[in-house]
């Protein structure tokens, strides 16, 4: 199980190591929220709010860490290995890059993608005074804007944001519990992130009418530097093991009209011994039978 020269001596240690080893179906990704050497109030508040949104799949580090992710990634990788987090959000502030947020993800405890975003405007959870939704709600994610598909950097940013805010993958969801929605709009070189609480109102038919109420953190972001993974590393990270592919059912096919066809493979049949419907008129009469026998026997005599 644990391929290490040191075997775990307790069950607890074994469970701890089993949770961290690579699996076919992976765990939900954890995020670590780190403050840089000179983080100001805005950035700290942003980190705290995002932590509230991502609980319990996030770790908020209290102390300031003096590192520069774009220059040296070793300390980030060390933290990732210690806390088993593959997503990170690093906040810092200086004159050249005010209110800086670096959002990134890891593959195999090495940095895969990193995107630096600048916070231009921030409205915190505390500032908007209304009821909030419970902790740990799976949010609905909506991306508006054609930039998210056209530009390569925006495409990676979209993938990163989905990875970050997605939450655990569930097989079924309570329809009344769809309370939280995160809406990202990319316009004019800016990205507006807004969070709303969803109110389901009665409409005449089964599907309810949606009313939104501004709730949680809202950010106006600007894309600054990026450090994206090379294409082949990204492809390697995207690779899923074969066992996860859905198994195709053999011998079943569908045509354009929706009809399902099946194939049955039969063994070779002896057509003379087929059980068909009995037609009394076609039954062999005794005279015909003797003629057939008479014809069959002379052939036998010849071969011997």
């Amino acid at each position: 199980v644990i391929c290490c020269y040191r075997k775990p001596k307790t069950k607890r240690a074994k469970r701890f190591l089993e949770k961290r080893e690579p699996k076919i179906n992976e765990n939900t990704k954890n995020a670590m929220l780190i403050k840089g050497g000179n983080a100001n109030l805005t950035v700290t508040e942003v980190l705290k709010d995002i932590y509230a949104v991502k609980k319990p799949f996030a770790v908020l580090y209290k102390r300031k860490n003096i590192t520069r992710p774009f220059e040296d990634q070793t300390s980030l990788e060390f933290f990732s290995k210690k806390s088993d987090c593959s997503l990170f959000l690093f906040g810092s502030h200086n004159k050249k890059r005010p209110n800086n947020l670096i959002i990134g993800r890891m593959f195999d405890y090495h940095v895969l993608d990193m995107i630096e975003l600048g916070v231009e405007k921030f409205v915190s959870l505390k500032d908007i005074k209304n009821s909030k939704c419970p902790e740990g709600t799976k949010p609905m994610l909506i991306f508006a804007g054609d930039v998210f598909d056209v530009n390569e950097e925006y495409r990676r940013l979209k993938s990163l944001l989905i990875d970050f805010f997605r939450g655990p993958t569930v097989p079924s969801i309570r329809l009344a519990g769809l309370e939280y929605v995160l809406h990202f709009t990319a316009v004019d070189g800016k990205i507006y992130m807004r969070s709303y609480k969803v109110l389901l109102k009665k409409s005449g038919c089964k599907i309810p009418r949606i009313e939104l109420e501004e709730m949680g953190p809202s950010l106006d972001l600007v894309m600054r530097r990026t450090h994206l993974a090379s294409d082949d590393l990204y492809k390697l990270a995207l690779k899923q093991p074969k066992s996860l592919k859905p198994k195709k059912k053999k011998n079943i096919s569908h045509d354009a009209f929706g009809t399902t066809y099946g194939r049955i493979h039969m063994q070779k049949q002896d057509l003379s011994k087929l059980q068909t419907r009995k037609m009394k008129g076609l039954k062999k009469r005794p005279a015909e039978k003797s003629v057939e026998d008479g014809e069959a026997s002379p052939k036998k005599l010849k071969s011997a």
Partner: protein
Amino acid sequence: MAAVRVEAVLAAAEEQEAEKRRSITVEKELELEYDLGNLLAVDRNPPPAAALRGAGPRREALLQALARDNTQLLVSQLWELPAERAGGAGGPLVAQLPEPTFRLPREKPPPKPRPPTRWEQFARLKGIRRKKKTSLVWDEQAKEWRRRWGYRRAGGDPSRAWLAEVPAGADPEEDQFARLRREKRERVARNELNRLRNLARAHRAGSTVPAAPLHPTGHQDRDELRRVARVARVSTASLGRFQPRLPKEPAEPPSRSGGKKRRFEPLLGNLAAERSRQLEMLRDMSSKKPVLDITRAVNKQMRQEEAEAAAANKGKKQSKRGKRGRRQQRPGRSGKKSGARRQPQQQKAAGGGTGG
């Protein structure tokens, strides 16, 4: 008069229906793309850039309206999913989400299956399967069910054993307790050594190791040393032909093909050899006795069937076994060696006689 009223009523009903529908319909130029497994919707329509440029509450209102429209569309899609009432009639309405389609990179690379250990290889070859043992054993002395090993095991605590019998052929002066302790220590050490060897083998199998150094390092195993010895023997001026051999080392004939795996006879060469070969082939074809040794073939078949049965049982139990079951690979076909070994001695002589 009545007809007009009926028409009016129908028209009014239709308008009401349309009104209801209007509250949940949203007009969009381009359809959104949905990934319901992730509760994700992507809107490709370019947002009104000019309107959003001006800061302030107007922008917020516009963003909220856009968000409301998109959320309405997403929720409509989610409500279309097959839903059921969880936990009986009174429970909440729960929808079955499909698998997420948006491809996201993994956290860690997928796990590689580890190679089987020496015992696992042997067990697969012989068709040995794991015997399921009960967790509790009946202890006659204590007259109750006790654990097989661990705290309060059946058969009492082995460290408190006050009697150690002297075995038949042993030295009467020897300290039996010391012997038992020493043997346990040796067993534990051997087990640990084998575990580390298996780990090293698995690790080596995974990564490509560079060529072995020609001097002994003390960490090489038998096969590696054999390879290295062969290379050292051949690297003399006469290519190892006059090197003395150790008493038990087998004599290796030099491969005249020079490393090629298949050798073909020249077309026109030894006429006598060709004649004898063809005559022998004709003799075999015309003889009534079978060339195939039946007993050997039957034993080989039995070996194969046993291995397949073991694999089928492993396959059935895979779901219960989980990780361990999935990691064990399919058994390979047993070689000729095991088939020959299995053959009983008297049959071999008879088989040899008839087969010939």
